């Protein structure tokens, strides 16, 4: 079997081809094409409202695309007879009837997909919910609900995991737990595709990134490439004579801004040039730090650019 891209379709590969979803006038997903591969954690990143959840719903066959296709292992989700054994998903942690217990929720899903009963106890144990398994879900905190959502996703021991904001509501210990779990699942050769609007979390968890803004693909690259390509180098400088230093740097054509932590943030001259310049002019420096903008800043800039682009395009119509 081969995908439309010409590359062979691997078991567990998620593919979106020209995926588009419109709700009335609003285009939530706009011609998205991407591939999510097994064996690594792929982060799906975008600001709130970028179309992440819609895309995941399209992949899971919950919403029908306006055009384009979304497949898992070369097949549409709806074609899977017992999907939970192939694809585990967590969309809305609170999407469980409050009157049910955690165990009842999982037992029902297991029965629906011929998953052996012992898996229910296995995933309850894995997610640390065994003790509260007999309690009604109504009383669960968001963190416990997220764990139940993870338990449901893992129930069928699937090759592919699709998770929408799984760390939302988890405490520090929970976040660390999920990060370790996702990395180990990917290391076993499974496909892990998780969305988040939190760049900092992604930076620690994901190996690969798919970034969208306003429903369009902004980047599909490794985490390292994404940072290196998109972040701009700058230098932090501090001096007891800040005004003099600024005039000097600006005279050399550098752009100088006040940094949030104090001192100057300099673009256009590297640390070596700034150091040499200061020595030549007899200026004391207290700090000279080369820096990259954080992933957070890169991502904010990228999504802002895309929003501005979109606004311009719409103004031109």
């Amino acid at each position: 079997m081969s995908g439309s891209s010409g590359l062979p379709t691997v078991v567990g590969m998620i593919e979106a081809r020209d995926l588009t979803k419109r709700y009335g006038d609003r285009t939530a997903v706009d011609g998205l094409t991407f591939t999510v591969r097994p064996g690594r954690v792929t982060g799906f990143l975008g600001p709130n409202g970028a179309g992440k959840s819609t895309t995941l719903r399209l992949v899971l066959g919950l919403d029908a695309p306006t055009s384009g296709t979304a497949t898992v292992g070369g097949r549409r989700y709806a074609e899977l007879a017992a999907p939970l054994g192939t694809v585990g998903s967590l969309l809305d942690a609170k999407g469980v009837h409050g009157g049910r217990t955690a165990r009842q929720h999982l037992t029902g899903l297991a029965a629906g997909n011929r998953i052996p009963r012992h898996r229910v106890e296995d995933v309850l144990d894995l997610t640390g919910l065994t003790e509260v398994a007999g309690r009604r879900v109504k009383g669960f905190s968001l963190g416990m609900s997220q764990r139940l959502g993870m338990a449901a996703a893992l129930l069928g021991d699937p090759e592919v995991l699709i998770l929408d904001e799984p760390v939302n509501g988890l405490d520090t210990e929970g976040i660390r737990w999920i990060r370790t779990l996702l990395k180990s699942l990917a290391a076993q050769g499974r496909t892990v595709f998780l969305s988040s609007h939190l760049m900092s979390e992604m930076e620690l968890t994901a190996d690969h990134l798919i970034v969208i803004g306003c429903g369009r693909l902004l980047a599909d690259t490794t985490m390292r490439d994404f940072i290196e390509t998109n972040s701009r180098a700058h230098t932090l400088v501090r001096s007891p004579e800040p005004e003099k230093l600024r005039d000097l740097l600006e005279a050399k054509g550098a752009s100088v801004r006040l940094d949030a932590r104090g001192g100057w943030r300099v673009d256009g001259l590297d640390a070596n040039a700034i150091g040499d310049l200061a020595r030549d002019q007899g200026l004391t420096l207290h700090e000279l730090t080369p820096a990259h903008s954080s992933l957070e800043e890169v991502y904010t800039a990228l999504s802002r650019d895309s929003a501005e682009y979109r606004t311009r395009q719409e103004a031109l119509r």
Partner: protein
Amino acid sequence: MTALADARAGFPQALAHEWIKFRSVRSLVLTTVATAAVPVLGAVFVAATGSLQPDDTVLGGSLSLSVVAQILAAVVGALVITGEYGSGTIRSTFAATPRRATVLAAKAALLAGLTYALALVSCALAYLVGDALLEEGRYAQGKLLPALFGIAASFAVAALLGLAVGTLVRHSAGAVTAVIGVLLLPSLLGPLFGDAQRWVAGISPTAALQKLTQTSDATAETVGSLGPWPSLLLVAGYTAALLLLAAGALRGRDA
């Protein structure tokens, strides 16, 4: 690939999933229990108050409150699906069974089987209670069989009607209001239509039920001259049509 990935699942698995979901929601279980209890309590009540009209039958009198029970069955039918939309469970249901027609069929089979069996037992019991408590020889007996099977079937049909309306409306309050309206309004508004009353009132599932219980309330002037069985068939017919409509809506809609 893991072994679980090769598992096949179809209607029996969807039915098992529905059954577990059904019995783990207290409101559904309680409403269902009420559906079964109301006819029996009604028989006791009517016998105790001696409120039965002289021209009524033992069967009709014993099943005086069966109309209320039938409405409760329809409410259960609606809640089985609207509860899932309300809580968001519908998405995990569709994630487990992407073929939505299978989900609806499983819900329909569960509801029809459960309400039929419960109504059969409950209405038979109500009749026995009424027969034992009502004054001997004062009322015509009424013919229990085969009417009882039709009575039970009218409960199943009402539950399915509730399911169809619930699937189309999706919101619990709206669906319950709509389904009670469908069951009650025809007989409430019927008199406003003058000569057409028998047509208006006669289309409700409650009319079919009343005819089957052979109560003196079900006169040709109020609920039409259509016999009890054709009346049941009529209600079953439009319920089936509504269910097909609901299945179509379910397939085309974003969850």
